[in-house]
């Protein structure tokens, strides 16, 4: 028999209590993993939105925290193109629309010009790209097409207007696969914002970090009222992403506190019930350190067991979230391995936090006193 065998047998001495505590931990850890996983994938989708297309800078109205609320004159595109170090410029309008009949509360709609650099990373699965003079045509992302049940040639109602589906596309970014692309002019008219864009994306040449930083400063000094942001910084500054991250970390902190209290309660009960037994172990020559290791080991096994259950629950939970059509366009159902690994770390951390006090208390028991505790 190994020492770990003893620890595991002790843990399952009160099966119902152990399973209930582990289930509580699992729910808390699953919530953490799902939220952190969503935030992680959100960031990855956001990053690939820019980096996958070779975009170095995003130009928007200075002072806006969300690109959706930015408004710039479309003509600024020509001024940007004339600035030294700018290789390519693309105007973009982005908004969020709903599709009530499919119970989709929000899908990303992009207004792009035909042949724009923004089409990089967009792969047409079926149909064709729209041409420069076409209006009221739409390229549906694969996930959105699936949710709407539309195929090439069908009509789709976009904010009250019929648009003809000319392509189904797949994108490196989940946001685009869950949304649709329409001609820029059509979206400007649809939103009553003719002549306006929400921003421009820029490909720099040369595109080394120093040159991009210099170009960023040049744009901001030559065109007052605009903010040029490097692609990575744009992701970091996005308000929704920051909110998602804050929520994920707040939930993690809360889960650790609640989980620790659960482990603390269970382990304190265990120590109280086994006081005489701990006295016997000390009488048999066990040192305080071994008693401490045993109780802490039980807490850690409980935490890790809860974490493993939590990881399974998180994967199942993510699949359940995706039963909601809106979520399918924004949420990647795969929880990344580092996030799942974080579940184990959280389980370990909360078991140590919750297990230390009962373990120290058990180790500090006076053996003679403990033996009288029956």
């Amino acid at each position, binding site marked *: *028999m190994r020492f770990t065998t*003893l620890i595991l047998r002790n843990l399952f001495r009160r099966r119902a209590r152990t399973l209930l505590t582990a289930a509580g931990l699992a729910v808390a850890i699953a919530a953490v993993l799902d939220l952190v996983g969503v935030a992680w994938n959100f960031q990855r989708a956001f990053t690939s939105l820019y980096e996958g297309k070779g975009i170095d800078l995003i130009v928007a109205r200075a002072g806006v925290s969300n690109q959706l609320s930015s408004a710039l004159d479309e003509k600024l595109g020509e001024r940007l193109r004339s600035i030294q170090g700018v290789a390519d410029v693309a105007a973009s309008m982005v908004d969020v629309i709903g599709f009530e009949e499919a119970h989709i509360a929000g899908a990303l709609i992009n207004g792009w010009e035909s042949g724009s650099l923004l089409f990089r990373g967009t792969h047409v699965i079926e149909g064709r790209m729209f041409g420069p003079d076409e209006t009221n045509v739409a390229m549906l992302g694969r996930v959105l097409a699936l949710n709407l049940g539309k195929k090439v040639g069908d009509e789709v109602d976009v904010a009250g207007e019929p648009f003809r589906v000319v392509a189904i596309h797949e994108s490196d970014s989940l946001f685009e696969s869950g949304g649709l692309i329409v001609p820029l002019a059509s979206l400007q008219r649809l939103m009553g914002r003719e002549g306006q864009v929400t921003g421009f994306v820029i490909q720099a040449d040369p595109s080394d970090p120093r040159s991009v930083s210099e170009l960023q400063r040049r744009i901001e000094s030559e065109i007052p009222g605009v903010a040029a942001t490097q692609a990575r910084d744009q992701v970091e500054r996005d308000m929704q992403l920051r909110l998602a991250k804050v929520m994920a970390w707040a939930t993690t902190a809360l889960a650790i506190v609640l989980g620790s209290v659960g482990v603390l309660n269970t382990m304190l009960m265990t120590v109280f019930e086994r006081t005489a037994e701990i006295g016997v172990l000390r009488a048999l020559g066990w040192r305080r350190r071994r008693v401490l290791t045993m109780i802490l080991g039980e807490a850690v096994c409980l935490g890790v067991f809860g974490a493993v259950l939590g990881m399974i629950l998180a994967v199942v939970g993510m699949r359940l979230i995706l039963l909601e059509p809106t979520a399918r366009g924004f949420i990647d159902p795969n929880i990344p391995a580092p996030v799942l690994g974080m579940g184990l770390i959280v389980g370990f951390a909360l078991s140590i936090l919750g297990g230390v006090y009962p373990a120290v208390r058990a180790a500090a028991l006076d053996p003679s006193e403990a033996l009288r505790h029956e």
Partner: protein
Amino acid sequence: MNEREQPSGPILKGDDLRKVYPDGAVEALRGVSIAIEPGESVAVVGPSGCGKTTLLHLLGGLDEPTSGRVFHRGKPLSEIDRDQYRAREIGFVFQSFHLLPTLSAVENVQVPMFEMGWPPRERAKRAASLVEQVGMSHRRDHPPSRLSVGERQRIAIARALANDPSILLADEPTGNLDSRTQAEILELLEGFRRSQGLTLLIVTHSAEVAAAADRIVRMRDGLVEAG
């Protein structure tokens, strides 16, 4: 020379032991002196609350006296590692057996061996041998709940002998047993004492158990009355 082979002097000695429990209300021992020779069998008898178990705990290094000193082979316990003393020199047998319910009989015997740093295979081998010596090989894999009280006490004795101690301290070892099983357990203890040169100190209420010892120490109200 091996410590265990020390030729003269008591193996265990209590010198003017007093024990007042922290609340100050109970003075369990009021100046007890006792000396036990190597290989001797001593029974401590007396009415409930006279301080027998307290004396056993002080001699076994489970507790510290309020005043007075305990010596093991002439060395004060206050100057040695008491955990190591209990692990290597003392074997405890309790009235309620105190076997771990989640472990089998033979696994229970291995529990004290964790402190000795032996490899798992060696622990298992020694435990199996001890279980055989107490006549419990046929029940070695049974949990305590499936053993009779006599069988549990046999396993508890095997566990007490796990680290090859020099002294066996037994607190009412036959208190929960019928007279036939009591006789069997006494015979087992006596057999180990003779074969392994153990020193045996038994706290008991039983006249039969006391009569089987080399010497009887009678206690009353925290003092040694005779012996």
